[in-house]
């Protein structure tokens, strides 16, 4: 990121924020900001530079120090379990030289002008913020050292920050951070080019407790910053915010996507004790807008739920088009038919059709992945109030700035008049990057004269009105030579696009959707043809953890196993041959100029790293060993979010057809590992969630209505489904590589590894997810 310093702008930065307690004194705090200047620099922006509102590294924005030495670090990214409130604070604390026990975290409100980009998705938080947060910490440390030098009238070069103190090295005199805070706050922020970042050898928190899984041992790393509050029930999630005079709302929304309210009878609802009023909420089935419907507003949540149960509503499907007849089984069959004909060509190498025709042997398979709902344990919930023409929001939102803008749009307000307080998220997984539920609360508060209103989604609401993971159908054909070597590969992928959420249905996947493991398929095969036939959307489609990587990896990694079986070869050996020799591929050579918005020269598709995770996972799992009857090892590898994951699952299929996942070995390479234990826990979680996708989870529709009402029908993994052992092997953690993603890339290879293991155990091939009862006789 060195070239970024060129167009640095520093504008009237007040330093008062640095001193705790003066932040609220009306001090104007402007961010030091790098502004992309495309006119001067024809180079495309990548990484954090490519994000709306970029990044900020001003210590005055992120760090304040109390006179008693307490260091408060502002975390501006949403915390949904990925541990960013701990990990980014570790980075700042390390560069600053702060003692972990004297550091606290404060959550930023939604304000990208001040904080830089806050949209917490795409596995980007650490990838984009490691360097700015290091610089913020280093700048604050330098200011403390300068303040000490002034106080002692000595050269600053003789003053060095230790742990929470600055020491004058020749004399041994020392001053605590708290003693220096006020003087440091008066100093200018040092020029970025003058900052001295600490060498890794001086880090006390970053990267600690790395290496093999500590097998139950408790490491010395900083523990999660919110851990104690969570286990005591004191941590505040969106649902936990309580305001005086607050009303509680539950909303009935149109069951069919695009339908609208016809008529309703609220006479019974109004008789429910505690129900205050029944009102309508306007909706628009596009982007982050609410779906609309009928809101029961009450004195408590239970009255609102009971009131809604007593509503009688006629929905009008006339605006829903053929969504009203959407049947997910019929739709799958339609996709199967469509997949028989060629589609829009995405990538072509050699003459795949001719090579397929000439092949000694052809392998063919069709894979299906259903709709999924993110189903975070905390269903969507938000609180809004409007006072003196200003709106205030409390909610578990992944994208606070989009929340602010969407609420402002709904209320006809300047976004500057909307304050978004970001609570902890009780899970996100992509669902809470869409603030439709917050807009509902804002709309209702306005209808009640600005009174605080909490909108609570029930689990039924969450499953019926998710932004669903799109259904996907993938048809693959391969041609093998007489030795079983691959000659040709043809892959047709069909799936509604998230583009359908934002405008006219494009019916084809966009570049970023194809770039999630489809156009970027890395196998070294002489002839390749990748096609994307048409598929239209009939429900609300949105991001789900790892997004289109899930079906692409499921299809490609299952099919590699099928090819190996057809060739009579060991799957691991065959997979390594498909990957080919270690090399770095520029994704643009595959027609993908998206590359997770990262610079393809810094972040090529590195086949050497893919091979390394395959080798590590298989070695750790004892690949090739004799397995008991009914038990097998399954392998899959995938590159996503500029990180590399290979998974081997040890799976038993019982005589009754039950699947038991005994062990998992996950080899993961995300480059630098800032908080290795949290990386491990993210991978453990991805393993469990991936097993759920493989075994149980499915959202289906009939007559346009979602058929799963609650967790008795939408199955998610339980304790008994989790492997007894999930061994996460973190490799290649050197800080000379650029940072990769963590939250999502663990997911995609899990379901194909599961199905490959089922094949190894039973000889039965699962091509339609979830496994469900397909193995029961």
């Amino acid at each position, binding site marked *: 990121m060195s070239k970024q310093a060129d167009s640095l702008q520093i504008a009237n930065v007040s330093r008062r924020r640095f001193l705790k307690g003066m932040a609220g004194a009306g001090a104007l705090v402007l961010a030091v900001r790098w502004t992309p200047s495309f006119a001067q620099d024809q180079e495309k922006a990548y990484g954090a530079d490519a994000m709306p509102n970029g990044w900020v590294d001003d210590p005055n924005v992120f760090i304040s120090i109390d006179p008693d030495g307490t260091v408060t670090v502002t975390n501006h990214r949403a*915390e*949904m*379990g990925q*541990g960013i409130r701990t990990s980014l604070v570790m980075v700042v604390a390390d560069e600053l030289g702060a003692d972990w026990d004297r550091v606290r975290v404060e959550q930023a409100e939604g304000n990208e002008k001040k904080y830089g980009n806050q949209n917490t998705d795409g596995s980007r938080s650490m990838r984009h913020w490691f360097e700015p947060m290091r610089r913020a910490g280093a700048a604050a440390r330098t200011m403390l050292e300068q303040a000490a030098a002034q106080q002692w009238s000595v050269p600053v070069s003789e003053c060095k920050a230790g742990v929470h103190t600055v020491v004058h090295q020749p004399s041994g005199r020392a001053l605590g951070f708290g003693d220096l805070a006020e003087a440091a706050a008066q100093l200018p922020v040092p020029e970025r080019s003058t900052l001295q970042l600490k060498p890794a050898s001086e880090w006390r928190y970053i990267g600690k407790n790395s290496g093999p899984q500590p097998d*139950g041992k*408790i490491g010395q790393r900083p*523990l*999660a910053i*919110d*851990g*104690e509050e*969570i*286990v*005591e*029930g*004191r*941590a505040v*999630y969106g*649902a*936990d915010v*309580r305001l005086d005079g607050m009303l*509680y709302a539950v909303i009935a929304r149109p069951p069919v996507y695009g339908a609208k309210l016809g008529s309703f009878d609220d006479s019974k609802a109004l008789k429910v*004790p505690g129900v205050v009023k029944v009102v309508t909420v306007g909706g628009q089935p596009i982007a982050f807008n609410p779906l609309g419907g009928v809101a029961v507003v009450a004195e*408590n*949540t*239970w009255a609102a*739920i009971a009131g809604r149960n007593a509503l009688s509503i006629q929905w009008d499907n006339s605006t829903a088009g053929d969504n009203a007849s959407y049947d997910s089984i019929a739709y799958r069959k339609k996709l199967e038919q469509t997949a028989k004909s060629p589609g829009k060509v995405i990538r072509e190498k050699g003459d795949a059709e001719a090579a397929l025709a000439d092949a000694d042997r052809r392998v063919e398979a069709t894979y299906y992945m259903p709709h999924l709902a993110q189903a*975070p*344990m*905390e*269903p969507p919930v938000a609180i809004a109030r409007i006072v003196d023409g200003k709106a205030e929001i409390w909610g578990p939102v992944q994208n606070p700035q989009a929340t602010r803008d969407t609420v402002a749009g709904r209320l006809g307000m300047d976004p500057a008049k909307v304050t978004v307080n970001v609570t*902890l*998220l*009780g*899970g*996100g997984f992509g669902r809470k990057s869409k603030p439709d539920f917050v807009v509902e609360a804002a709309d209702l508060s306005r209808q009640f004269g600005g009174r605080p209103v909490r909108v*609570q989604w*029930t*689990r039924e609401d969450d499953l019926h009105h998710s932004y669903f993971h799109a259904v996907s159908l993938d048809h693959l054909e391969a041609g093998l030579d007489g030795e079983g070597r691959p000659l040709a590969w043809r892959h047709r992928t069909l799936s509604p696009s998230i583009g359908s959420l934002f405008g006219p249905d494009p019916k084809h996947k966009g570049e970023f959707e194809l770039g999630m493991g489809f156009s970027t398929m890395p196998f070294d095969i002489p002839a390749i043809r990748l096609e994307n036939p048409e598929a239209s959307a009939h429900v609300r489609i949105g991001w789900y953890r790892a997004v289109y990587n899930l079906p692409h990896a499921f299809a490609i990694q299952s099919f590699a196993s099928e090819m190996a079986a057809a060739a009579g070869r060991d799957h691991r050996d065959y997979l390594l041959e498909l990957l080919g020799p270690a090399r770095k591929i520029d994704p643009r050579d595959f027609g993908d100029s998206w590359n997770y918005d990262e610079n393809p020269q810094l972040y090529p598709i590195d086949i050497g790293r893919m091979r390394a995770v395959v080798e590590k996972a298989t070695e750790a799992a004892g690949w090739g060993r004799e397995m008991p009857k009914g038990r097998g090892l399954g392998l899959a590898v995938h590159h996503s979010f500029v990180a590399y994951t290979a998974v081997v699952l040890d799976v038993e299929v019982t005589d009754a057809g039950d699947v038991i996942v005994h062990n998992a070995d996950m080899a993961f390479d995300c480059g630098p590992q800032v908080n290795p*234990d949290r990386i491990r*826990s*993210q991978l*453990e*979680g*991805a*393993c*469990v*969630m991936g097993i759920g996708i493989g075994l149980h989870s499915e959202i289906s529709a009939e007559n346009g209505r979602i058929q799963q009402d*609650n*967790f*008795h029908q939408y199955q*998610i*993994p*339980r*304790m*008994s489904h*989790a492997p*007894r*052992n*999930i061994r996460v092997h973190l490799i290649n953690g050197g800080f000379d590589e650029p940072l990769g993603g963590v939250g999502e890339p663990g997911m995609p290879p899990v379901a194909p590894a599961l199905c490959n293991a089922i094949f190894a155990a039973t000889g039965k091939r699962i091509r339609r997810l979830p496994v469900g009862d397909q193995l029961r006789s």
Partner: protein
Amino acid sequence: MSTINTTINGKSEAIQDVDPSTPLLWVLRDHLGLVGTKYGCGIAQCGACTVHIDGSPVRSCSTPVSAAQGKSVTTIEGLAVNVGALTAVQQAWVEHDVPQCGYCQAGQIMSATALLKANPNPSDADIDAAMSGNFCRCGTYPRIRAAIHSAAKAQRGEKA
């Protein structure tokens, strides 16, 4: 609307103006402000709302408040005897960095606490049986299992 007399986290409560069929969960959260107990499904599937009534784990989303009449209710806020002093289970949760998002963990801890009270040395199968009604979407199950074993060990150590 009768009065429900109950004890919540050691404190006597006379709950008034509440329909006795109201789920205990919403009385705890909305009426008493004890928001550590979470809503997850409303149909006793996910376990996020688990509390103890007279020491036994119940799903408060599907338990009418009337069931607490004359009984003693413990929520996550009242689990530790002293504020700030963690129980062995809570301590193990912190040390294993069990929580990811943390939303389900109050329910997990209440179930695990009840399990260890009934069975001080649970096997993995015992843990599966006792904990499979508590969902965690983040997938913290391996760490929950490790933390339960760890807490069991610590509790046995205390007794010894």
